[in-house]
């Protein structure tokens, strides 16, 4: 079939796609791309047709999409905005709608492009100036006649800012330590329970064994119950006490094991 021969050369297609990727990478954002596209109009930026420019940009984005090139979000945001601008420019203004007119928005965009262009030219002119150490020179052998020796300590702003940043960064990485004032340690519960055990004889509720000052505030009480419960398990394991519970969620009771 000769049809196959009409298909575009896959290699050429791929090359074209790659060229576009390179191009998109080569632009510093949507504004830079717009400025580059605007050059094809070959007019003063003040007389540029923003409508044409919007068409070109949208066309560029379409091509990129057709080639399945991943575009950064800001390129798509600009495309959406230009599509909106295009509709404003094409449709007769709706008197009931407030907000800026298409012409105002277009003028602003043209001005932004002109400003970016102007800054690029200013940057080029700046770098084209005579520069110290390249076109003109400072004294090659600055004289510092030694007699009085004075040590001057120096630091630059960047040193200062880095020092502060370093301090604050270290703070962020300070190991997490929680507030221990409301925590009743397991070791304390075990020691307390062991000490009180000889004075007990019959079944008593676990609640009774909570230390003074740990029965009020719920947070403190929770911690004390947990620690004391853990301590009773340890003592039961050691064979010093017996534990019982009449049903699920019923109060836990304990007593010393006879013979211990």
């Amino acid at each position, binding site marked *: 079939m000769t049809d196959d021969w009409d298909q575009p050369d896959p290699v050429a297609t791929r090359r074209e796609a790659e060229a576009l990727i390179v191009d998109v990478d080569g632009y*510093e*954002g*949507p*504004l*830079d791309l717009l400025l580059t596209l605007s050059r094809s109009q070959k007019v003063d930026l003040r007389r540029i047709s923003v409508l044409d420019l919007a068409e070109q940009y949208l066309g560029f984005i379409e091509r990129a999409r057709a080639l399945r090139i991943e575009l950064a979000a*800001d390129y798509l945001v600009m495309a959406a905005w230009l599509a909106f601008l295009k509709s404003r420019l094409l449709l007769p203004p709706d008197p009931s709608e407030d*907000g*800026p*007119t298409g012409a*105002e*928005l277009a*003028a*602003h965009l043209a*001005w*932004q492009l*002109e*400003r*970016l262009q*102007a*800054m*690029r*030219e*200013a*940057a080029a*002119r*700046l*770098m084209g*100036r*005579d*520069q*110290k*150490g*390249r*076109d*003109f*020179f*400072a*004294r*090659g052998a*600055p*004289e*510092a*006649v030694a007699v009085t020796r004075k040590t001057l300590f120096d630091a*630059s*702003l*960047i040193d200062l800012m880095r020092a502060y940043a370093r301090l604050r960064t270290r703070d962020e990485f300070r190991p997490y330590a929680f507030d221990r004032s409301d925590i009743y340690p397991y070791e304390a519960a075990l020691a307390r329970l062991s000490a009180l055990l000889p004075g007990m004889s019959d079944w008593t509720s676990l609640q009774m064994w909570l230390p003074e000052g740990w029965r009020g505030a719920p947070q403190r009480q929770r911690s004390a119950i947990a620690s004391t419960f853990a301590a009773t398990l340890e003592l039961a394991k050691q064979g010093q006490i017996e534990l019982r519970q009449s049903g699920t969620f019923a109060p836990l009771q304990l007593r010393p094991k006879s013979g211990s």
Partner: protein
Amino acid sequence: MPDDHSPAAPSLFPAPPMAEQERMIEALLFACAEPLTLAQISARLPEGCDAAEALGHLRSRYAGRGVVLTRVGDGYAMRTAPDLGWLMQAERVETRKLSRAAIETLAIIAYHQPVTRAEIEEIRGVAVSRGTIDQLLEMEWIRLGRRRMTPGRPVTFVVTEGFLDHFGLESARDLPGLKELREAGLLDSRPMPGRPSDDLQDEDDGQIGQSELFED
């Protein structure tokens, strides 16, 4: 001083003759690689000297020579004449290559100062990448200006005397094309039509800052 013969503070010794004052300043400026301010020069001269006048004499003496007296911001320095740069090939110092983004950022700071990071990004249409500002600060070509009195009180950036010295500028007012850019309205900060308030406030502030820096 209107009258040289009755100095405000009586001194034990008369001030050296003007030609001698000129010699002293010549020696001082030759010895220093960095610019010296009028105050720094005066502080090193004997009492009763008129450093400003002596500097004027020195400047005309060196006009057209291989070494010239230049003004850098508030300071003065001796520098080789720019047309002789080719002779000093061996003395050239390779400065770190600046990226295009860094060069543009530098130009925007110079022409729009004091300028916030957000404004730089607005003008370039892209985020200022990590390290760009850092690099310019490290080269001591830019420094922090006053915080902007807008919500968030963002920091601003301005160019330094080191920047002026490097590019042979007497002051930020002498930036090439500054007047034309201003007249063309390209240094204004115009909010996007339909965007309200805090941008306008920004604009006012920006203009105050500009006039402070650029007007005499």
